[in-house]
């Protein structure tokens, strides 16, 4: 009978093309909006380094204004970055298995003798453990040594994308490039790597791409580099030179540590607490002791990478879907009741209520399947639209590209959503048409 119901469903859809288009359109629109918001929400709320969630910690210390907290809404949370002097002091600890202090900078990259235009390149100025700690893959070469960090040595790691631009994708290890007019030697090329959101630095937008170049942290001082991200301070300071910036209460350094077990974590917590106590005695850290080691998932939560707005947006998307489905229920009822005389004939000829119900449910299933497919395609288009809105060059921002891709989970979610939601929406009209007394339409037809 299923084949017959399917045949009838397609026949009925063709009978009222306008009404059919309206219903499919309503479902597709609701599904598309849900797919779009769900995809964005999933991309932004995922923990991109979940497999190391138990060993990685963002280090934060509350040295802020004794009169008021750093976050008005979350007074318990310390600033998300450290001052240079705190970061370098804590970095000296040998307790962590791995540790990294870093900030973002922007440099102009060029290659001598090449016609290619110099590139304004987002660069991460970091200590060497960045790559091992965050499982950053390499296409060619590798990272630098501790000595290169403090030296600092003029070595640089490029992203695969930048390497393709500068060297056509060839193994460029050993080649020389210029970064802000300083010569650097390429020692590694990072492979595709796109943590989304970019959890390790939430200052510059969680959807930003990872940087295209990486240089040892020592270059920060050597080249007097300032952060390309937020720099916050709590007390008025007259900063006239770079050294004063390094000694100031301005926060601009991100710090992460890898602590393999609870005992090590406790030891390191003790270490930074002791450091704070010492600083208190020296007149700093006037707020109550509040130093935190925060795991990536909690870090994303604390920094509201997925804000309430996003959650509200998801809620609104589902509300919109509900409205679309409600409209579909109305249209289905109208459509089915419009065919009630034919249903009456079928009942007279031997169709039971159950068979009429199933016949109409199959029709609903066909409508919902077409609506889901269309919704999926429409959702994909909407996501492409978002990508176009937020990026000048679609090839530039892989992070936004990731958002603009409908992944398998979203496809399955959308299909399940469409199927169950529309079937649920169609239950009442299908049940209702099955309950109509056939005799009342046989004379009237």
């Amino acid at each position, binding site marked *: 009978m299923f084949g017959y119901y399917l045949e009838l469903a397609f026949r009925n859809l063709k009978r009222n093309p306008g009404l059919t288009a309206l219903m499919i359109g309503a479902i597709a629109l609701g599904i598309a909006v849900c797919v779009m918001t769900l995809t964005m929400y999933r991309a932004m709320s995922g923990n991109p380094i979940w497999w190391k969630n138990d060993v990685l910690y963002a280090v934060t210390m509350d040295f802020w204004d004794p009169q008021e907290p750093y976050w008005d809404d979350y007074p318990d949370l310390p600033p998300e970055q450290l001052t240079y002097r705190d970061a370098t002091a804590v970095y000296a600890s040998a307790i962590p298995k791995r540790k990294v202090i870093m900030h973002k900078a922007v440099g102009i990259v060029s290659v001598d003798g090449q016609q290619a235009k110099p590139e304004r390149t987002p660069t991460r100025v970091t200590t060497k453990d960045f790559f091992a700690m965050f499982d950053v893959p390499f296409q060619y070469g590798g990272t630098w040594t501790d000595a290169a960090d403090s030296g600092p040595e003029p070595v640089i790691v490029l992203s695969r994308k930048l390497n393709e631009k500068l060297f056509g994708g060839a193994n460029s290890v050993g080649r020389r490039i210029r970064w802000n007019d300083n010569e650097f030697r390429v020692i590694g090329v990072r492979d595709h790597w796109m943590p989304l959101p970019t959890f390790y630095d939430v200052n510059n937008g969680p959807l930003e791409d990872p940087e295209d170049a990486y240089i040892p942290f020592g270059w920060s001082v050597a080249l007097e580099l300032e952060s390309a991200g937020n720099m916050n301070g709590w007390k008025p300071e007259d900063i006239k030179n770079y050294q004063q910036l390094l000694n100031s209460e301005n926060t601009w350094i991100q710090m992460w540590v890898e602590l393999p077990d609870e005992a090590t974590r406790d030891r390191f917590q003790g270490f930074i607490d002791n450091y704070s106590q010492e600083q208190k005695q020296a007149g700093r850290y006037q707020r109550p002791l509040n130093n935190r080691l925060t795991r990536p998932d909690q870090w994303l939560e604390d920094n509201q990478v997925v804000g309430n707005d996003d959650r509200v947006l998801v809620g609104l998307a589902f509300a919109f879907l509900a409205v679309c489905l409600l409209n579909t229920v109305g249209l289905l009822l109208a459509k089915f009741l419009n065919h009630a005389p034919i249903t009456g*004939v079928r009942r007279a000829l*031997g169709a039971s209520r159950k*068979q009429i119900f199933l016949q109409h449910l199959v029709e609903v299933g066909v409508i919902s399947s077409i609506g889901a497919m269309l919704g999926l395609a429409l959702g994909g288009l909407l996501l492409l639209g978002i990508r176009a809105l937020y990026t000048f060059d679609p090839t530039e921002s892989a992070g936004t590209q990731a958002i603009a891709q409908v992944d398998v989970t979203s496809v399955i979610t959308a299909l399940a959503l469409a199927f169950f939601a529309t079937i649920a929406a169609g239950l009442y009209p299908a049940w209702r048409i099955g309950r109509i*007394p056939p005799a009342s339409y046989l*004379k009237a037809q």
Partner: protein
Amino acid sequence: MLEMHGISKIYRTDLIETHALRDFSLNVGDGEFVAVTGPSGSGKTTFMNVAGLLETFDTGTYKLDGQDVSRLSDEARSKLRNEKIGFIFQSFNLIPDLDIFDNVDVPLRYRSLAKKDREQRIKSALDVVGLTSRMHHMPSQLSGGQQQRAAIARALAGDPRFLLADEPTGNVDSLMARQVMDLLEQINEMGTTIIMVTHDPELARRAHRNVHIVDGQISDLQPYETRDSAIMKPVTAATAMSPA
């Protein structure tokens, strides 16, 4: 074939109760051709709907082919309707977007017959009504008489034990009406019991019996000894419950 005893059917609204059938009793034997007459609103259609298991009734008993149908589920009633009853309506009630072949196929679909068996039955039924050459026409491409013949083919395809015809000639001209009536007689001669509602005394006269309904009750049963002679005999209460 059909035994109704003390059937009553009341339609209720918030304001009013309408007694469509009151203490209605009728027996129709195997192979009978019964004409049901009566003024508008007398309960003819309600009787047909109850007889065709399209509506339930409030009190009384109804046996169809020996089976008490009073308390059957919708599923069982639908199965009985599909297998034992054929319907012919005044307005044909063909499904407009199915061709004649598919229209005749409708009751067979609900019987889960094999495709080959269905095709054979459809062609045979269309052959009986003389519409084999029109099987792929749409209903709108046929005349009123042809549409009614198609509806008769649909009723016949399931090989029912009895046919319920509600004003089968009401929407066709007199020539077509005679043809439809000839066809019904032919079907009846093949052994199918027929109950036909009609306003046309001429057609009623061609049935074996004439049941006259007024105000939801049988007011008169007038069997015809032969259709050709059209001699009416009054019946007594004793004979009213038995087939002619």
